[in-house]
């Protein structure tokens, strides 16, 4: 059912000065809207994309045979391939004949359901080094299709520099953030199993998804190595949320694992139903979509932020919004882009950039190394319900905890799953044709298990983005030029990831049929982080511990760009816990009149 009670207001009142204007409506911006409005503040939320009729887009339960192209987007649309990211110069869509060009995720199954969610590379070009930048411009941003793995960071991450001497510590410790992780868990719902691991703190879990036979077997085998796989810690409410009428509990339909993502009953967290609609219900939130912010405006007398300028993506008209505080949640790279674009006499290098660190210290998760194997005991066995869940398992970091690895710093984790899916991906790898071929495909369908790694990419000053002097997007806003490559630490880590993945499978008696050792293009993990990092030293960081600009007291950046390092654990839950903490602080400061 299309929610029309939370319609955006395209004629939002821009005469008043809001307490805060928020840029972006994803995990970060949505959380900021929730927290600030719950403190009674008047907030304007600007989103560059549209509000889609998302249930109609996702059609989570549609069978492949009920779709004319079995779920695929039209053939005139193209998803970039690994090869194209590697050999084509940016902008990737340049010189392509396709009607629309999308990032690689649109090459997954069911791409017709997400084609209106992700951006067209034609409208949003980038330049520089190869980078697979997955962006979603719509109300809710990437939370409309996120992978849902909801993990906490620990002091192995926040205090990593103290442990190994590389980079900077975060200006907070786990104890500072733990109460906010608890709030996020309770307000949004998370499923999982307590494991008591110091490197991966437990959440306040609702009931977990379950394991398949092969996963149970793999978990038991890993005990000998003092390692563990735990049911996918999903940002999904499995028991329901009494305080939120827009979200259903999860019915284990498994729809979310069959496609790019998305949940049409909103059991999986998404920012609109989880945060924004409840915030609108307070009466304190004004939502303006189709509003691409291109500048943070500055008060000439004080040097503080006075609001933002935005362009209506449909009409091309420009507007100004005024606010006592500006909160950026446009996504890691977009927030940095916006700050770099916001040059003024007071802030000649871009707003909040007296340190020169905006755009720098980029970090993320490297992907590529992975393993696939067969569990022989499951060949030819009756098929079971295996994909009725948001994810399979998570194998937490085990490197550089108690021991020190001689070859690389930091660590990596794996996501994986075993069991039967809707489509037999092994059919094309099964040789031949005819009755024997068909029987083999059937017999092996439930016997596969695989996992892929997510490794911490070290933040480096010289991994950075800047404004391209020549290239502009469809609306005339200068775009980002990338200077991002993986270094020696990532290369050595990737080798260990592949070796360990293979060894763990072999130790479990899984017949390994494939090991990938190559790193994928930067950006592939969709976990881009850093570029406006927090810190206590204004010369080496952009934000303080409350994600507040060192230079401009009423400017906050509450998305992943504030992260000091990437950890190897997925960032969304940390983004929201940090945003909650910072917006509590901002609300307090606004009430005291101190920003």
């Amino acid at each position, binding site marked *: 059912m299309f929610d029309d009670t939370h319609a955006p207001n395209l004629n939002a009142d821009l005469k008043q000065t809001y307490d805060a204007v928020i840029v972006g409506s994803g995990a970060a911006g949505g959380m900021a809207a929730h927290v600030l409005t719950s403190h009674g503040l008047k907030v304007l939320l600007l989103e560059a994309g549209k509000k889609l009729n998302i249930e109609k887009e996702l059609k989570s339960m549609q069978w492949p045979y009920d779709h004319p192209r079995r779920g695929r987007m039209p053939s005139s649309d193209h998803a970039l391939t690994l090869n194209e990211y590697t050999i084509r110069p940016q902008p990737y869509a340049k010189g392509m004949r*396709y009607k629309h060009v999308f990032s690689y995720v649109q090459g997954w199954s069911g791409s017709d359901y997400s084609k209106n969610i992700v951006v067209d590379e034609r409208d949003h070009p980038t330049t520089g080094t190869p980078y697979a930048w997955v962006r979603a411009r719509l109300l809710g941003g990437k939370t409309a299709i996120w992978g849902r793995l909801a993990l906490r960071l620990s002091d192995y991450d926040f205090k990593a520099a103290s442990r190994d001497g590389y980079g900077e510590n975060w200006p907070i410790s786990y104890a500072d953030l733990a109460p906010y992780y608890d709030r996020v868990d309770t307000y949004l719902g998370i499923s999982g199993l307590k494991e008591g691991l110091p490197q991966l703190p437990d959440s306040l879990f609702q009931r977990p998804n379950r394991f398949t036979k092969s996963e149970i077997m793999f978990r038991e085998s890993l005990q000998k190595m003092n390692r563990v796989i735990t049911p996918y810690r999903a940002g999904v409410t499995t028991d329901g949320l009494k305080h939120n009428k827009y979200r259903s509990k999860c019915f284990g339909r498994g729809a979310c694992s069959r496609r790019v993502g998305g949940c049409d009953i909103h059991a999986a967290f998404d920012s609109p139903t989880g945060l924004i609609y409840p915030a609108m219900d307070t009466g304190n939130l004004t939502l303006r979509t189709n509003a691409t912010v291109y500048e943070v405006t500055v008060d000439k007398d004080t040097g503080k932020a006075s609001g933002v300028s935005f362009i209506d993506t449909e009409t091309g008209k420009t507007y100004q919004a005024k606010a006592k505080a500006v909160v950026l949640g446009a996504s890691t790279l977009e927030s940095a882009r916006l700050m770099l674009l916001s040059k003024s006499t007071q802030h000649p290098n871009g707003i909040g950039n007296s340190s020169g660190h905006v755009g720098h210290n980029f970090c993320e998760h490297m992907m590529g190394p992975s393993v696939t194997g067969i569990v022989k005991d499951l060949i030819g066995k009756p098929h079971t319900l295996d994909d*009725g869940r948001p994810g399979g398992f998570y194998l937490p970091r085990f490197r550089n905890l108690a021991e020190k690895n001689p070859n690389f710093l930091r660590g990596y984790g794996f996501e994986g799953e075993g069991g039967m899916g809707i489509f037999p991906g092994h059919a094309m790898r099964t040789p031949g044709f005819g009755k024997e071929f068909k029987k083999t495909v059937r017999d092996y369908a439930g016997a596969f298990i695989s996992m892929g790694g997510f490794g911490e990419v070290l933040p480096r000053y010289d991994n950075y983005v800047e404004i391209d002097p020549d290239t502009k997007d469809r609306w005339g806003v200068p775009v980002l030029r990338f200077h991002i490559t993986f270094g020696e630490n990532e290369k050595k880590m990737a080798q260990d990831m592949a070796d360990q993945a293979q060894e763990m499978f072999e130790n479990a008696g899984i017949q390994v049929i494939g090991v990938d050792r190559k790193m994928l293009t930067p950006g592939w993990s969709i976990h881009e982080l850093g570029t406006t990092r927090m810190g206590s030293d204004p010369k080496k960081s952009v934000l303080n511990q409350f994600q507040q600009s060192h230079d401009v007291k009423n400017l906050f950046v509450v998305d992943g760009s504030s992260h000091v390092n990437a950890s190897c654990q997925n960032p969304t839950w940390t983004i929201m816990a940090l945003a909650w903490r910072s917006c509590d602080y901002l609300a307090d400061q606004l009430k005291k009149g101190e920003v």
Partner: protein
Amino acid sequence: MGDELRRRDLIGITAGAAAAAQLGATPTHPRFFTPEEYAVVDDLSEMIIPADEKSGGAKAARVVDYIDVMLAEAFEQEERDDFRAGLKRFVSTPAAEREALLGRASQNEKRPRTPEEKFFRLLKQYTVTGYYTSKIGIHDDLDYKGNVYQQGQYAGYLPEKHS
């Protein structure tokens, strides 16, 4: 009137009509293949995934209609030309000898070189995709249990110390 009724009856009893309804936009006649090509592709797809004691094959799943739609709507003319060029050899081969030809064409699947080998790979890709996204492939053959509302406990197992 008699003719009209008869035509409708005929259409109604062919499997193609059911598949056409399933595919939505598919007309009751092929959009890309000639009638001769259509019949040959139908036969070849069944050779790749035949009916067996467990389930119907590619013919029953109307894989040929799926391939016809995909080729009719393919973005590059080259995709249509390549398929047709590879198919030509099979169309011109007597029906009784086609399976043997398919067997020879399948000898180099991983690194296909000759036009026949490349065609085999293409045909297999289309057939696999079409068949295993069909009702027969998903439900009858693979016994896929998912895409359902689970009530109560989720399926699967919890690790021992938790169960």
